């Protein structure tokens, strides 16, 4: 790749190592700031594999040209992978894995087939198997080694001789994952599941540290494919033993991914007590990526909310939202927010309206907005209507059991409102306002509410009315200190997390690797740290 022509005259290479961002822009500061403009500029000089190649979008490409480009991209990321494995540079391997997402979006069957042919020797069993799994495109001949389909729009040139030796395991698994991704995207569930099973077995038979990230991805797709065909329960044992192995090998990525897959597995079948036991017996690795941590926190929040530990659940869910990527993963954020709204309501707080108005959440959260409105007003009839109207949606989101618990909250809020507005009110009126069946019911509910500390009043049974007690000065109680403490701990948590999350590019003075210019490498290192979060594919639950 050519060095950027638009750059100012370069300083000596040594200096350029130290001041990367100064090279990219007029001296404005050394912070590794990821403004969109800077990213745009870097991408124009970057590897062709990077996302959003604006330069290339100018001229419309024929399918063949796109296919050729994609082939080249795949080839270069595989080269990157090999380099990473040889140099044991985890960063390069992670980057190659990240490119998978971009490639996935542009993948097509001919390219897939050609990739397999290019990298597996003709006699390889794995290669042959992959070729057999790739579906035949309509209107083409069967697979032939010349690889020129006649009537498909994509014309690929003749292939050079196929390689002589087996590819390194990483490359093999990488290509297998690409095939797997494509099959999943084509919705060929059964084939995908079968292939996933084989790849998992292959991965389990090897013990290479460089394979860890790829292995984690394989397990992820294995679980996904089986979930799509509804056979998730069968692999629980496998996931558990794989998790054990990952722990023994100190494989952080694998540990985190597998733990999340297991939790998802249990929660899918409503086995919350087993999920809870798993959580209590394992530790989630500290150094896992933000995405995995976000997933873990979401699952943890779900478990806690079922166990009535609402404060803990709410904390987990809030943290999950913070750790989720900024601009993508809207499905995940929708799911987390739905649950967070319900947990907040169960805690007795009303979520802010601004939450519902955010563009990406607006559609998904509309039933929850209606629900919040009903709870806020304390209107039992409206609450019942909303639950019936959106029953299907709530069931899909698996929040309907929690919503059933909300019924009491509605009554509590209603009672509290009444108590605040009336100094004295008859039981009959209360029953009417809350749409209860009888005054005795109302008496029972009010008595319980008084006992629980929801309202401060006494019932005068003879007169049949409820009399509110005098309001006490809030400042003389512990309430302000309690609220202050909550806010202080929150700020301190955010600060500590930020400090922990500050990372520095590893070994800025490591020797150059062939084909990568020095200052580009510096930018890439910094960009790695950002992109790692942005580019990883996120699947919402359910």
């Amino acid at each position, binding site marked *: 790749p050519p060095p950027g022509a638009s750059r100012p005259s370069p300083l000596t290479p040594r200096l350029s190592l130290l001041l990367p961002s100064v090279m990219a822009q007029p001296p404005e500061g050394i912070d590794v700031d990821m403004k969109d403009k800077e990213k745009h500029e870097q991408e124009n000089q970057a590897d062709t594999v990077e996302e959003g190649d604006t330069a290339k979008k100018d001229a419309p490409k024929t399918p063949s040209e796109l296919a050729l480009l994609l082939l080249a991209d795949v080839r270069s990321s595989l080269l990157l992978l090999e380099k990473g494995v040889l140099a044991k540079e985890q960063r390069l391997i992670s980057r190659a894995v990240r490119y998978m997402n971009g490639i996935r979006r542009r993948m097509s069957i001919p390219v897939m087939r050609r990739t397999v042919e290019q990298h597996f020797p003709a006699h390889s069993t794995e290669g042959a198997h992959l070729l057999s799994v790739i579906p035949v495109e309509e209107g083409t001949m069967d697979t032939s080694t010349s690889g020129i389909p006649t009537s498909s729009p994509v014309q690929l040139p003749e292939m050079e001789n196929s390689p002589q030796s087996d590819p390194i395991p990483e490359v093999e698994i990488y290509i297998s994952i690409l095939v797997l991704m494509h099959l999943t995207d084509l919705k060929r569930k059964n084939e995908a599941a079968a292939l996933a099973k084989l790849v998992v077995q292959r991965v389990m038979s090897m013990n290479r540290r460089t394979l860890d990230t790829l292995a984690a991805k394989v397990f992820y797709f294995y679980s996904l494919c089986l979930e799509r065909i509804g*056979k998730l*329960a*069968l692999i629980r044992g496998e996931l558990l033993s794989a998790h054990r192995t990952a722990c023994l090998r100190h494989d952080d990525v694998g540990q985190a991914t597998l733990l999340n897959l297991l939790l998802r597995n249990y929660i899918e*079948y*409503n*086995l*919350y*007590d087993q999920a*809870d036991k798993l959580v209590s017996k394992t530790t989630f690795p500290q150094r896992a990526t933000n995405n995995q941590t976000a997933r873990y926190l979401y699952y943890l929040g779900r478990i806690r909310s*079922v*166990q*009535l*530990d609402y404060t803990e659940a709410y904390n987990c869910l809030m943290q999950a939202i913070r750790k989720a990527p900024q601009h993508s993963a809207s499905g995940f954020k929708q799911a987390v927010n739905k649950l967070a709204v319900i947990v907040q309501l169960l805690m007795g707080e009303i979520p802010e309206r601004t939450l519902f108005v955010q563009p990406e959440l607006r559609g998904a959260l509309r039933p929850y907005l209606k629900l919040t409105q009903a709870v806020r007003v304390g209107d039992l009839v409206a609450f019942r209507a909303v639950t019936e109207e959106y029953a299907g949606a709530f069931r899909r989101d698996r929040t309907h*059991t929690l919503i059933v*618990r909300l019924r*009491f909250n509605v*009554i509590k809020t209603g009672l509290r409102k009444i108590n605040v507005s009336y100094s004295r009110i008859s039981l009959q009126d209360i029953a009417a306002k809350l749409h209860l069946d009888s005054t*005795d*019911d109302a008496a*029972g*509910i*009010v*008595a*319980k*509410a*008084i*006992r629980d500390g929801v309202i401060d*009043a*006494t*019932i*005068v*049974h*003879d007169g049949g009315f409820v009399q509110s007690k005098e309001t006490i000065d809030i400042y003389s109680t*512990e309430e302000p*200190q309690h609220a202050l*403490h909550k806010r*202080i701990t929150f700020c*301190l948590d955010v*600060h500590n997390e930020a*400090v922990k999350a500050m990372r520095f590019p590893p070994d800025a003075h490591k020797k150059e690797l062939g084909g990568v210019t020095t200052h580009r490498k510096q930018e890439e290192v910094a960009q790695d740290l950002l992109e790692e979060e942005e580019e990883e594919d996120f699947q919402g639950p359910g």
Partner: protein
Amino acid sequence: TNRMSSQEIQKCDAFLQRFKGLLFQEPINIDECAQAFADLQIGMTEFQTIPPSLQPPNIKEFIIKREALEHAALFAINKQSIAEFEKYMTQLKQFYSECEAIKQLLPPSQKKNALTGLYLLYLIYQNKTAEYHTELEQLSMEEQRDLYISVPLAIEQSLLDGQYNKVLNTNLNVPMKEYSFFTSRLLETIRHEAARCAEKAYASLELKEAIELFMLKDRDELMKFMEIDHKNAQENNMVWMLHNDKLHFQTTGQEKLSIPAYKMIDRSLEYALELEKIVQQKSKGR
């Protein structure tokens, strides 16, 4: 790994039937039942394929074991032993839940809903709300409407609403006699709950109302209940006085308002520590 011969399995089945027969005899003979159950258990130790074994399952063994556990749980109730009941239920839950491979092969148990309902009732009685809700998550909509399961659901709902007298009604019509074991005990507990609610909510109550509220029969029972409840009332600084057909609730003494010194000291120290950390980081020039 020698699988049991079908003859041995037949023998176990015979034990099971005998146990069931004795269990449902009226009046029940505890000792004979216990003996029959012991025989059955000894027979079942030979089973090779029930969990946690990983061998391919032998359906007959599963069915026998499951039925044995169900009836053992019922037997424990008849023996009035809660610990045993819990023990058998935990084992039984394994047979009811997951294990997809087995589910397709096993015929559904007839007593499943009855026992699940009983277990839910047990959890309510023991006040294990977290477990109760976790169990609830696993029930589908149809199961929730089932006769046996709707009983504990209704009870829990009434408890939440403070409608303690509704629980009294459920006590009178239980779908299975084992349920009354828990409901009668539950009644005792919630009577105390109702007392706590009442003393906070009411300044005074007519005698008639009080008797109704606490689900008692007449004045004498009320007096007896007051004596039993006396200690609990004292803990909440309450004293009950029966005066001229009216029940008065009076507070005794003021609740001491103390400054939560330890909590404040703890918190202030925490803040100081964190601030120190931040200042140190800043001064290191990060």
